[in-house]
């Protein structure tokens, strides 16, 4: 029973961070209708920024949030403005070339990171990296718990932004009906740029939160890109609430899979969920809740 509870708790904690990653992806999906296959790689860039800040300026990873998030926001805006938006004007037979572009961006980001930092495994070992506390026989890893709480805080902030501010409302309007939003005077290009930046910023936060726990190497982005789109499908395309539940579900499922099936199948669990959802519940968790 303790093992089960422990599995559940660690799944839930990592699930909170997954939700953060998934929400960025789902925002981009909702507004632009494309899946961002460079999502994990953007996180990787944020992790390297955090690493560099820690090594050269001894900046705590959690404080590096304030460097990495704006940095990635700007990077995301630039990517959308100079690489993705121009594609809207290109007439081609293949409609998916924005997706393909994100793959290209992903490769370039990974290789630039490899060029600068080489393929060596790096890690940021803070004083609290391995600290744990116990609650009813179940151990909680400190950095994971802090990460979970910060992820929750960021989620609340994002919802406040989307529901209460003018810009947030514009983003939701474009996601719901682009043409109508343009007719209401929303500058949809500007919104796509901000949305991509926002998605990049959110995933950057996830990167900062993960760095005390994970090793860092250039290829770390790829599994997270996969996870992000599993979450997006699981939660229902473009549904931010869905992404939260998708993230938590994936975290718990992976954790259960790792405990009861085998560590090497951990990644496969997510993908099998992905295909199962596509077959039996197209539309994702969103369909169940009607939110």
């Amino acid at each position, binding site marked *: 029973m303790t093992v089960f509870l422990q599995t559940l708790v660690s799944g839930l904690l990592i699930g909170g961070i997954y939700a953060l990653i998934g929400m960025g992806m789902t925002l981009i999906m909702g507004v632009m209708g*494309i899946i961002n296959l460079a999502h994990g790689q953007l996180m990787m860039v944020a992790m390297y920024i955090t690493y560099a800040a820690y090594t050269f300026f001894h900046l705590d990873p959690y404080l590096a949030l304030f460097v990495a998030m704006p940095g990635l926001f700007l990077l995301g805006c630039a990517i959308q403005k100079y690489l993705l938006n121009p594609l809207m004007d290109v007439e081609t037979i293949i409609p998916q*070339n924005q997706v393909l572009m994100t793959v290209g961006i992903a490769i370039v980001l990974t290789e630039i990171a490899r060029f600068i930092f080489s393929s060596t495994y790096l890690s940021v070992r803070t004083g609290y990296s391995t600290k744990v506390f116990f609650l009813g026989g179940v151990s909680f890893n400190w950095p994971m718990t802090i990460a979970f709480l910060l992820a929750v805080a960021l989620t609340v902030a994002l919802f406040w932004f989307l529901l209460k501010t003018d810009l947030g409302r514009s983003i939701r309007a474009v996601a719901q009906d682009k043409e109508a939003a343009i007719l209401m005077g929303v500058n949809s290009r500007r919104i796509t740029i901000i949305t991509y930046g926002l998605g990049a910023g959110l995933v950057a936060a996830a990167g900062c939160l993960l760095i005390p726990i994970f090793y860092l190497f250039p290829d770390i982005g790829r599994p997270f890109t996969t996870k992000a789109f599993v979450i997006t499908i699981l939660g229902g395309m473009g549904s931010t609430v869905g992404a939260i539940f998708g993230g938590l579900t994936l975290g718990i499922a992976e954790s259960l899979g790792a405990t009861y099936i085998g560590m090497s199948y951990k990644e496969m669990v997510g993908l099998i969920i992905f295909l199962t959802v*596509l077959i039996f519940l197209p539309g994702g968790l969103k369909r169940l809740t009607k939110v």
Partner: protein
Amino acid sequence: MKRNQIINAVLALVFLLFPLAVTSDYYRHLAILALMWVVIGGSWNLLAGYTGQISFGHAIFFGTGAYAAGILADKLGLSAWWGLALGGPAAVLMGLVIGFICFRLRGPYFALATIAAGEICRLIAVNWESMTNGMVGILLIQSFRSKVPYYYLALALAGASLLVFSLVMKSKWGFYFVSIREDQDAAESLGINASLYKNLSLAISAFFTGTAGAFYMNYMAFIDPEVVFSLPYISIMAILVAIIGGVATIWGPAVGAFIMVGIQETFRSAIFGLAPKWVSQSHALVFGLIVIFVILYLANGVVGDWPKIKRLLVRSPKTGDATWLSLKRGKSERPSEG
């Protein structure tokens, strides 16, 4: 028509005589790889370019074919050449499974599902060690030391694939494929069984990709999951080959294969050893930059964007103005603009 036939005959002759004229194993190797990509790029083009089902997972079929050949040789003790006959059918079976799952979805969702399916296949190949040797991979001994037999085999494969693709596209099936790409609902309302024809297109595509995979196993004599199920270097490369050449043209992917292999090798060898060494170390970076460049500026490929390229090339150097010829062509080709 007659001019085309002459061009085809000359091309065929050039390719048949190539290994006699070029004795360097290095260039023969590049030609073999390019011919293999002709097959894969063309297969992708049939499914995506003509039928409109953008697959991001052609590595599934390539890997299945390669592993079919590899497992036959490694586990059953048969010659890996049987794989050349069985790799295609194995990939078709895989294609039916993939089609069953992924064809429920349309457009970007289909593309996503194929990515996921490709990742699952890669993870299965990594984890099912008793069958695939996992990350250790499968190592065989090449049947021939010389590259010439492989060259002609690849040439035959490429020729056969081009022939089949052009025949299919001239037949009734081809028109059904294109109608599904243009508007699936309209096609269905006219009585076309969209699901059947999408699966047919996928089956042909998977067959040739799988055969190419089996050929790869025989030729390179080593595979591991990261090589044959690679998302960037197989699935994305297949897309690039088709895009750089020209999507939805028969010859586009064939031209694209030679361009892509050429560009990649140029950078891998650091511009033939002229550039400093870091250029060759960054060939993966160059691959990514090529993806971005091609989509931004050559989205319809060399064959599709030929008029655009021509306009750039015949621009008069002094004034920078386009010449009369290119202006006239530009106008006549884009009547809807403005």
